[in-house]
């Protein structure tokens, strides 16, 4: 498993290719990448992402371990950025590898649901008219109940 927390941008395609090439016992790779969405008005200047450095890495590793206990998960990659990001920049990606696709899909969704609501990140939208912390969505919290 690989967990990377970084300020720098990353190339999701290159990361996915490298992750795929490193698998020797998998038949399926699933990936998700999140990008900075513009505001409803289209006036987003930046997305500022704060995190809890002493906790973030271990919390994500624990999520991956939990996913391993639930699915036949061979390998997993999580990259998550912090700091100041511009609209349309990549924020994060998850890739999972397993023998068969069902486990790779399920593990990727499981990790995404937990990253949304249980990894210590906080997003702040900076627009021309001011800055505002992003409120959690009820749907994100509810999504955890399906696991």
């Amino acid at each position: 498993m690989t967990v990377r927390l970084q300020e720098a941008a990353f190339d999701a395609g290159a990361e996915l290719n490298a992750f795929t090439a490193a698998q020797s016992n998998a038949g399926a790779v699933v990936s998700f990448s999140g990008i900075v969405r513009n505001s409803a008005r289209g006036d987003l200047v930046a997305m500022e992402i704060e995190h809890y450095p002493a906790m973030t890495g271990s919390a994500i590793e624990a999520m991956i371990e939990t996913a391993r206990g639930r699915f036949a998960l061979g390998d997993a990659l999580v990259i998550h950025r912090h700091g100041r990001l511009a609209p349309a920049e990549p924020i994060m990606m998850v890739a999972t590898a397993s023998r068969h696709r069902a486990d790779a899909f399920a593990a990727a969704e499981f990790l995404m649901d937990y990253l949304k609501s249980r990894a210590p990140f906080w997003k702040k939208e900076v627009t021309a008219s001011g800055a505002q912390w992003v409120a959690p969505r009820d749907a994100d919290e509810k999504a955890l109940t399906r696991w």
Partner: protein
Amino acid sequence: MIDVVYFAWVRERIGLPRESVETSAATVADLVAELRAREDRYDMAFTDLSALRVAVDQELTDFDAPLAGVREVAFFPPMTGG
């Protein structure tokens, strides 16, 4: 001494990211009560505990968690990762 750390709007409302607190609070809730009694900015930050989450020694927990032997308590709003 316990290190208390704040993130996102909790940090902004209290006005600092981290502080060392001399306390004999038995639980997180007791620590919150001590902090709220200090100054308005703490009182305001902790008004609605349902809007807050807490981690003790970097593990998510509840406000009734005990503080014996704990080194770090973190307060923050619900997380918005991904």
